[in-house]
């Protein structure tokens, strides 16, 4: 191949939108709003797994919540016909993530698993990704948080403890994905099996509202789940192509 041809093919490759597509994995989560009870187990499971700091009452009063996954609640109607709907909101790992483009130092980017990765080390704390995120699922470390001894002994050694001035967010428990991949490699398998890896929230969800897996594998449970006719994306109009798919709530009348 001549130099020009090489250049042209390279150019075409680099001009292709969605560069990360067609890799082995595209991790996806579906959340069935019909099954979610809003109990909050996922919130605490995430906090335990990912070393999410305790921010304390004063900080919460100032609106500095730190849960990577949170339950949003929306009321409908008034008493006696009031209805409450829950929706767990976590990083959507958008394929067209507004947060990724805005980071000047590339602290957040799309990795080859289709994850929206956050590199804590690289973050300078402009917080623009949090502004650009329409789902508001990015959380900032306003302080160096402390774990009063011996609470610090619980900290997960597989996950970094973030310092002040760093943005953080849901990683789909990338440390677990990593371990599963290593295990697969040790076993001589090319890919992680379906169901072999689950983020802490999915793992703990008692009502089985969440399914996690690789959507590039058409046999996976998540692939079936995301192709459910009830599937939709939150804030579809923003066109972020999220990797978190919600299944519509079923409303039974009569």
């Amino acid at each position, binding site marked *: 191949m001549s130099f020009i041809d090489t250049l042209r093919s390279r150019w075409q490759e680099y001009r292709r939108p969605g560069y990360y597509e067609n890799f082995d994995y595209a991790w996806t989560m579906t959340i*069935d709003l*019909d*099954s*979610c*009870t*809003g*109990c*909050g*187990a996922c*919130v*605490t*499971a995430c*906090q*335990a797994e990912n070393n999410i700091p*305790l*921010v304390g*009452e004063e900080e*919460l*009063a100032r609106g500095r919540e730190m*849960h990577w996954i*949170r*339950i*949003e*609640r*929306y*009321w*409908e109607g008034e*008493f006696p016909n*009031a*209805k*409450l*709907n*829950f929706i767990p909101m976590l990083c959507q790992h958008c394929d067209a993530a507004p947060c990724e483009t805005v980071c000047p130092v590339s602290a957040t980017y799309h990795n080859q698993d289709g994850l929206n990765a956050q590199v804590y080390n690289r973050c300078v704390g402009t917080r623009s990704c949090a502004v650009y995120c329409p789902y508001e699922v990015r959380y900032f470390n306003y302080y*160096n948080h402390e774990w*009063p*001894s*011996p*609470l610090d*002994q*619980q*900290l*997960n*050694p597989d996950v970094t403890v973030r*310092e002040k001035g760093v943005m953080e967010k849901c990683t789909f428990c990338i440390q677990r994905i990593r371990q599963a991949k290593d295990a697969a490699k040790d076993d001589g398998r090319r890919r992680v099996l379906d169901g072999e890896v689950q983020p802490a929230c999915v*793992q*703990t*969800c*008692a*009502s*089985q509202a969440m399914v996690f897996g690789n959507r590039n594998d058409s046999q996976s449970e998540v692939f079936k789940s995301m192709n459910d*006719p*009830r599937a939709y994306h939150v*804030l579809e109009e923003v066109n972020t192509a999220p990797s978190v798919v*919600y299944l*519509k*709530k*079923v*409303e*039974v009348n*009569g």
Partner: protein
Amino acid sequence: MSGIDRRDFLKLAGAGGAGAGAGFMMRESTKHPVEHLVPYTSSPEEFSPGIATWYNTVCSMCSSGCGISVRTREGRAKKIEGNPSHPVSQGRLCAHGQAGLQVLYNPDRLTGPMARTADNEDLLPITWDEGISQLATRLGSLQASGQGDSVCFLSEGVDGHLAALYERFMAQLGSSRLVHYDFTHPRTLYSAIEKLFGDSQLPYYDIGNADYVVSFGADYLSTWISPVNHSFGFGSSRKGVNGVRGRFVQIEPRMSVSGASADDWFAANPGTEGMVALAIANHIVNEGGYQGDDRDAWVSALAPYSPASMSQATGLSSSVIIGIAESFLGSQHSLAIGGGSAGNNTNGVDTLVAVNALNYLVGNLGNEGGLILNPEPVVGSGSGTLRATYTDMIELAEAARDGRIQVLILSGTNPVFNLPDAAEFREAIAQIPLVVSLSSFIDETSSLASLVLPSHTYLESWGDSFPEPGVGFSIGSVSQPVVSPLFNTRATGDIIINLAQEIGLSAAFPWSDMEEYLKEGWQQIYARGNTGDGTEGFESFWNDVVRAGVWGETTRGPSPEGLLEGVIESIDVAPPEFSGSSANYPFVFHPYISDTLEDGGAANLPWMQELPDPLTSIVYGSWVELNPLTANELNLEEGDIVEVESPHGRVTAPVFIYPAIMPNVIGMPIGQGHTDYGRYASGRGSNPIQILSPQLETETGDLAWAATRVAINPTGRRVEIVKTGGVSRELGREIIQKVGADGADADGADHAAELSSIPVKVVRS
């Protein structure tokens, strides 16, 4: 900017100028707290660094007995997850179970035995030998002098071999005062089941296979009996286990987590849930839905409860009642459950009898998706009968006041917090000469102790659990220590065995420790024969059980033949009685178990304090829930501090406008208002239990904690409620999208195709 040492100073002075100053400041700003990496010089054998070890054990955060797997790294517990092979939790866990790590690593844990040197002095550290001998001497002398009955052992509800050990210990001392007290214990449900079926255990409600569940006040997804198992069932049912998407109906005065997840939520007047159940039963029986032999008895017993006549008292229209009845009858696996506030009114037992009788009427006793009775307990007589009622506690308090109690041993339970002020329990305990606490934390009750012998947390000790209600067949699990003890504490079982031996009861307590005792106990289970395949000998069986975390038999419990004699005739739900006149106290007080803090036992766990309440998103505090209409009438807004006044006291808390509570009901979560119990719990919010009237459930004598009337007095002060949520209305943004069951959404668009994933069956009257 602390700690400018000489070198820093010299550096600063030497370099001079603002530049160096700024550099110094910069370095100060970026520096991390000093950390020390202490390597193991000789690492324990069980683990290799960097590789996680998983231990299966039992969760003790509530009484449902979920099996858990604890991930440990380098000898530290890192994460708790459900044990997938355990039938109760099925690999899942609730927020509470997750937070068990913070019991283990709580900074407010007691680190060693302590005693008060003189009256009202501070607790000072002692050695275990001193502590044990001090207590043993006392107990020994009481036992020797035949005053064993003046020793009281007040414990949280435990089951399995630990409960048996307690019983043995107290029996040896010659005391009958072994009291298990739990605020959340579903005492009235036990009575109702006993009344209906003569079974002294909780039945298993098979929600997972049910396709129509009516819950009367039971917050089964969050706080009632076995939330993880129920949630698992809920999810399975919603996904259409039997080809039909499960439908859930909730009847309660204030929307709970389960109410929010239900398809239909109906607000019935507080205490009238039983009447609703009977009205449903009336419709089922009278409209030919029930054809049993005893139909005539039912017709006559239910005659006063026609849906039309009940709609006035219950606040539900007869069409709603009939609709529920039709659906209940028309569904293949319909299930009625009851509890929570419905079971804690003055008519609690009657209400639950009425509710559970519905299951009988549609013939789903012992069936899939129905009410399943549990087999005989494997160890002991089941925990239900041991638990103290409010009346028992009052009797205990009286005995203490009369000086009939010399020694009180506390373990885990916190009655000073969980009993109303009207019980005057704190004052009663103060009369007891020696109060010993075996708790891991200084809570309100333990703070009265003069001798503190702190026990291990459940993640450091041996034990076992035979979960109730379980899953309809015999299961048991062994809980093992997953980490070596953090502090100078001892397992409760070890303390008891040690004490007994010190007293001189070695003959009755021949074991060296709890583990040995447990193994001996499990010999009997091994002897039952259901040891599975491939186990050879007890040791192998034991190791398998410990490794798997669970043992089980597939034998079902007895299929109920029918109801006990005379039950049908006695079916009757009296109107609830509330303390206080409706003129002075216009509102019914509806305290409820907090979704995050349980009955207050989880208030010392920072994760639980920071977990937003599912329904209100409030963290770190108490609040009073008012219907928007009521708030409007009283001219109150969110954050206005009000005083809730009952005939027996008053508490203050800020107002939260809650859209789904009846206008004449005032809701308030239980859990906050600790005065002790560590840095995360103490001095936060207020405790609604304080102001409850000592209104009793008529049959069991337990506290009817939903039977108090209150008045609301504005104080004029306000605070900003600390919550994580903003505006909880969608404002037309279609964040949570829905699809109608009839294939049409609000716009009338056809969505029939979307329903193909979940078959929905709609029963219409």
